[in-house]
């Protein structure tokens, strides 16, 4: 507890140390509140008039999961994203010009997203963050903002017959504008993270990535916010690592679980960025082993030679939603403990 307080105090003074974080939605159920939310949502699908209760439970659960992440030692949690349908297209619920179409698998997993069908100009209706980010801030002073990235969202959309956009590039830029509008209203946030699995994941949802640098340059130009771009569900090439490290963002997240050789590529690259070290297996590949703390520390010690750990984050490679809540809690605690130890 004393060390945790020291770390927090140090962080608040701006003396950087490696931080523990998590990626994507946190498991919803596995607690009394989560189970109650599941039941009430089911009731709402059956026609019950319980919208207020559902919203209240979502707020309660947000507080609960943020507290759970923090007590596990996660320095920079997200808001838990417990209200989102899926991790890929949810911000479009707060935008005009799009409807949700068919459901598809998220890459290699048995999680699903709704394909966004774009039929009109994309316009922000309201803040993309929703209420629950504010709820998370009620229980912890530093919560990162997290969105699916515009490239990945475009790759998971379809141009409808009335779409004013004629290409993937145009649609990705429209999504980037949507986020730029949102970012321009954000003040004092610890980190804004964009998840871009489509940059490295296998399959047709990950082609044409050469547009990414210009897309991010346009989206972020002139904005003064700490930005991270996270990649997962795939492997890297030399060229890809160079491209990622050239992006106008502060932190690049890498998937060390899918690509154990990423260390070698990073060791040969000179850059000043923070690295998201996605070293803890989120279970997306169907394994459920719990990593040994010593092995994590050995790996981090090796990384110290070519990664600036003071600017970096230790995390799961992807969302812990691939795991039941009790397993996720253990993984979060492992990330927290490894971070604490490496910072000692």
């Amino acid at each position, binding site marked *: 507890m004393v060390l945790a307080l020291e770390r927090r105090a140090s962080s608040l003074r701006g003396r950087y140390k490696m931080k523990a974080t998590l990626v994507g939605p946190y498991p919803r159920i596995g607690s009394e509140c989560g189970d109650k939310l599941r039941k009430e949502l*089911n009731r709402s699908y059956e026609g019950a008039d319980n919208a207020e209760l559902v919203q209240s439970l979502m707020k309660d659960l947000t507080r609960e999961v943020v507290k759970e992440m923090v007590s596990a030692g996660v320095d920079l949690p997200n808001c838990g994203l417990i209200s989102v349908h899926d991790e890929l297209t949810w911000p479009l619920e707060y935008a005009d010009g799009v409807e949700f179409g068919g459901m598809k698998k998220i890459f290699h997993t048995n999680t699903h997203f709704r394909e966004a069908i774009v039929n009109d100009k994309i316009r922000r209706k309201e803040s993309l963050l929703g209420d629950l980010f504010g709820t998370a801030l009620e229980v912890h002073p530093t919560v990162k903002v997290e969105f699916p990235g515009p490239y990945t969202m475009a790759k998971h959309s379809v141009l409808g017959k009335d779409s004013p956009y004629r290409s993937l590039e145009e649609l990705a830029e429209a999504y980037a504008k949507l986020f730029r509008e949102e970012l321009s209203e954000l003040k004092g946030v610890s980190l804004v993270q964009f998840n871009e699995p489509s940059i490295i994941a296998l399959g047709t949802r990950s082609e044409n990535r050469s547009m990414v640098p210009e897309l991010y340059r346009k989206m972020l130009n002139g904005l003064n916010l700490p930005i991270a771009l996270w990649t997962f569900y795939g492997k890297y090439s030399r060229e890809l690592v160079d491209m990622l490290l050239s992006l106008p963002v502060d932190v690049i997240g890498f998937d060390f679980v899918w690509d154990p050789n990423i260390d070698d590529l990073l060791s040969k690259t000179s850059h000043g960025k923070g690295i998201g070290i996605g070293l803890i297996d989120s279970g997306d590949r169907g394994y459920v082993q719990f990593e040994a703390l010593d092995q994590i520390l050995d790996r981090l010690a090796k990384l110290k030679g070519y990664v600036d750990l003071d600017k970096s984050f230790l995390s799961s490679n992807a969302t812990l939603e691939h795991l039941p809540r009790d397993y996720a809690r253990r993984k979060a605690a492992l990330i927290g403990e490894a971070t604490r130890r490496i910072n000692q």
Partner: protein
Amino acid sequence: MTLPILPTTGVGSFPKPGYVTGSRGRLDESSRRATKEFIERQEALGFDVLVDGEFYRGDMATDYYRALGCPIADWTRSYDNRFWKKGVVDRPLRRVEPIQLEPFRYAKNLTERPVKAMLTGPTTLANWGFNGHYKTREDLVYAWAEIVREEARDLVSAGARYIQVDEPAVAERHWETDLFREALRRVTDGLDVYTITHVCYGEFPLVYPNMPYLPVDQIDIELSSELDLGLERSSLLQMMKKDPLTNYKDVAVGVIDVRPGVGVEDVKTVTKRIRTALEVLASTDKALRRIWIDPDCGFRTTKNPDIAYKKMEVMMEAAKEVRAHL
């Protein structure tokens, strides 16, 4: 029994009525009652090949893990408010006793019409749990294939004429298509019955080129959202039009959206979906005779028995309408 043109069928499940409780892979009195009622409803609506409604099931994958004595982890989310419990393979997989035999026998004896026997496929079983035992993916998937093959043999012995192997995970690891196909071959090889594999909610364009070579008589594919997109916008429909699956297999076309929160379609919408499917897949009379009509997936995900029943009615009405104008 001779089937009509555009035969109609279900995919498997139906929302559990309130009186069905606690069925986790076992056919109890409440699930027997629900099965009987559901069979009668399908008969009354005129379905050609019936399904049992799967009222005895907890989950299509978890029940197999449970039946084999594997540990079951807590809930994991699939999307929105849908969850399942992942089983953990912590030992060599061995079947203790038949899993699907009793439910099939029970449903079959309730009707003169054919009833599909349902199985979960080896790739889906492997993907939807955790592997804590087998060293390679091949070892894991083939171990499941052996279990499912034993199940299939039992079902054939019990008089099954249609066996459906559900493989919604077909496109998850699209780079493992050869493994998927070989596992399915190990299940269906030598079975002297009509075999089906049901696939849904996948990135089908990634695996479509391999679908003609899958070792089954029929591919049952969720298609309603693609049919709504239309030939001009759907890359999958474009692939299908170019090289129709009906050149190789019978195809059951999913024309009813069963996702939670989606309302009951009108007959016109579903009729349009069927006609679009025919435009894509039925360029010849022979191809037309290879097409079946069914919902995208099991009705259980609609959550609501009344909505599901109305959707069944709409599907049958639309099929009737299209048949009348062929």
